[in-house]
């Protein structure tokens, strides 16, 4: 039981891939695999940021709004004939700044992350709709070229995604900062007692999440070629779902970027791609995706109940059986 819970994500992954592989021969091709990976890049990068947030037992509901806000402003700048690199730089700055606003309310004023980022979801989206006057904006050629560019034969979005995965993985596993995030997520009170600057740690994950949202927005725009009023919608849901599917716990302290986040994102993207290949009724997509997410969350809470039972305080020492 314990092992089943521990390896739930990879097991689920293999089951889903195998199911689609059996149902459709086209699914198990190199082309399709590459396609799924490239498609995964934007939501994957947002999910990397979300994984950092979830590790601290927080949540960031504002990532979709940050994406739209950054995209809307960049779109306006490009319409005003400003250069692409300035627009892209501005998007990243907006991402970090938005994360900073979240961080200030959460880490300094100690307001629940759920509330702060939910407010940002609506306010950020509202501001962006005002800026774009709720109209779709087409983006210049140059933006689209980012999406189709290849470096050494590897599609640029995939390259960026891969680099982000490696950097995030190294940060979480090999730096004091990363390890301290795990400690904070496990028990914030103990973390403070251990001399960690818990406010700073908490603030930084929202900055990271804001940055990742903006970078994800850039890659997504490069695939879409336009900013629509629905841009970034439901990304918070997808990112949380992918992170949890990859083994991150909503209760904090548990989760990895490699293989976790990668696995979760590719899993969600595979389901969508598989359903397209199978020509499934589009109305089925959300139901099937939701069912898979439900299973993942169920496993997460099952894992936690089990851990809680194992860690229950003992009054006496009985031999393990009895």
């Amino acid at each position, binding site marked *: 039981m314990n092992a089943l819970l521990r390896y739930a994500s990879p097991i689920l992954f293999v089951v889903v891939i195998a199911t689609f592989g059996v149902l459709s021969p086209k699914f198990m091709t190199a082309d399709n695999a590459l396609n799924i990976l490239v498609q995964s890049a934007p939501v994957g990068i947002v999910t990397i940021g979300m994984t950092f947030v979830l590790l601290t037992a927080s949540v960031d509901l504002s990532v979709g709004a940050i994406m739209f806000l950054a995209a809307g402003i960049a779109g306006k700048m490009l319409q005003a004939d400003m250069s692409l690199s300035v627009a892209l730089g501005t998007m990243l700055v907006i991402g970090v700044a938005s994360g900073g606003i979240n961080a200030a309310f959460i880490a300094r004023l100690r307001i629940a992350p759920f509330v702060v980022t939910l407010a940002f979801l609506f306010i950020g989206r509202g501001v962006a709709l005002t800026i774009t006057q709720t109209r779709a904006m087409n983006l210049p050629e140059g933006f689209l070229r980012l999406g189709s560019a290849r470096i050494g034969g590897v599609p640029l979005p995939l390259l960026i995604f891969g680099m982000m995965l490696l950097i995030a993985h190294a940060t979480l596993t090999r730096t004091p900062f990363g390890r301290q995030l795990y400690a904070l997520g496990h028990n914030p009170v103990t973390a403070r007692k251990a001399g960690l600057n818990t406010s700073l740690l908490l603030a930084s994950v929202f900055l990271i999440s804001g940055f990742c949202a903006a970078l994800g927005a850039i890659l997504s725009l490069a695939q879409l070629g336009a900013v629509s009023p629905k841009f970034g919608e439901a990304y918070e849901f997808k990112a949380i779902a992918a992170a949890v599917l990859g083994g991150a716990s909503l209760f904090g302290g548990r989760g990895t970027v490699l293989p976790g986040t990668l696995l979760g994102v590719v899993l969600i993207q595979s389901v969508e791609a598989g359903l397209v290949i199978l020509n499934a009724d589009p109305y089925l997509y959300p139901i099937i995706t939701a069912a898979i997410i439900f299973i993942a969350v169920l496993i997460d809470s099952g894992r936690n109940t089990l851990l809680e039972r194992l860690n229950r305080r*003992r009054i*006496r020492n009985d031999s393990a059986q009895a």
Partner: protein
Amino acid sequence: MNAMPAIEFSGISKSFAGVRVLRGISFKLGAGRTLGLVGENGAGKSTLMNILGGNLLPDTGLMVLGGTPYTPQGPTDAARAGVAFIHQELNLFANLSIAENLFLSALPRLGSLPWIDRKALHDRTATLLGQVGLAIAPDTLVEQLSAGERQLVEIVRALALEARLIILDEPTTSLSVRETETLFSLLRRLQARGIALIYISHLLEHVRELCHDLVILRDGEVVAQGSIETYDTPAIISAMVGRSLTRLYPERRGTSTTAPLLEVRSLTQVHIVRDISFTVHRGEVLGIFGLMGAGRSELARILFGLDTAQHGEVRMGDRVINRGEGPRERMVRGLAFLTEDRRHEGLCLEASIADNLALVSLRQHARTPLRLLDRNTWQRAISTVRAAVRLTEKVSDAQSVQTLSGGNQQKVILGKWLLAKPEVLILDEPTRGVDVGARFELYQLILDLADRGAGVLMISSEIEELTGLCDRILVMSQGEIRGNFPRAEFSREHLLAAALPREAHA
């Protein structure tokens, strides 16, 4: 041996809300020596150690640590000064490795790069573990360790912080015999290295085995101190119990009958309680005495269906309660439970007195076809029960319960259960944090209940109040019942002796 004491307390006093919990504590501990700190629950041990550990500030008094004045403003100050406090609840991160736990706030880096120097981290941890004779790989995740190993890691962490004084609070509670031996051999190495230890335990054999000096606290005062050899166990017990002021207890009018109301047979839950059997009779006030961590509250939670037990049987009247029945079903059977944590588990603090009182009996007032609340009968019930528990008349029904004193809050909880007309009432520390005047009224209410034919199971850490109120007292320790004293055999010394944990024999 160093002549300078490792720590010296002089005249430490501390009050909470006007209640003196420590008065003029003075004693000292030499470097490399180990001091056993013993006393009943509430004697002031935790408060004193929290002052030493920087969690609390003393009202008056001085501490001198290794020759220099010591005034910690927080746990970080204490850690910096070389004082480590190892709590019963361990402060480890189960999701990190041993090495990461030891050096979390100061992980070694590769030069000025942001990366952790994993080799240095590994080597330093291995050295520390080696020094204390622990053969565990530094990369092992803490969640893979047993309770005993975690305890040892916690001590090694104190060493990593270069602690010179380590406080241990009941470190052996959840350890097996072998783990306890390992712990003690580790502590002896620390003694040899000149580290001073303060060892808090109710397990007097362990105190005797490990400690050089002894300090006994009672009611916030040092009642005895000196070399451990000068005290035998009966002398320690009688110093712990002492003679405190006699309180008055209301007179009991009725008497206990022999009609069983609640019968418990061989209740067992691994690591929690073992083979618990007893009966609460109609009209009886049955006390359960025990020290902190004896398993009394855990037993109460099992009886009320909040936790489960693997074996055993619970009967109410002539019916067996099924294992799967939760609090709701057990309430219907006539069981009520006043928890030890009145603020979090007993009350909805923000809600009004009326809402709290009506909480468990709401269904009785939902009589209309639509199951809407009948405000009239509801209001009548609340007025009646307010009078019955003699709740202060100065507050209105609509006032939130958090504005009430501890005693009045407890009356609200009692009133809430009275409205459900229970057959058996389980009371867990009902007078904790309640002042003397309100206590008397609570005692009166408890006796009235028994006189009217209910059974009362009263858990308390105060021998005094149990001997004053109960018809019979059970003593629990280490999750077992260790004594059953009828009123004629009440003796403070015997009760406490039964409550002290015993060394396990493998």
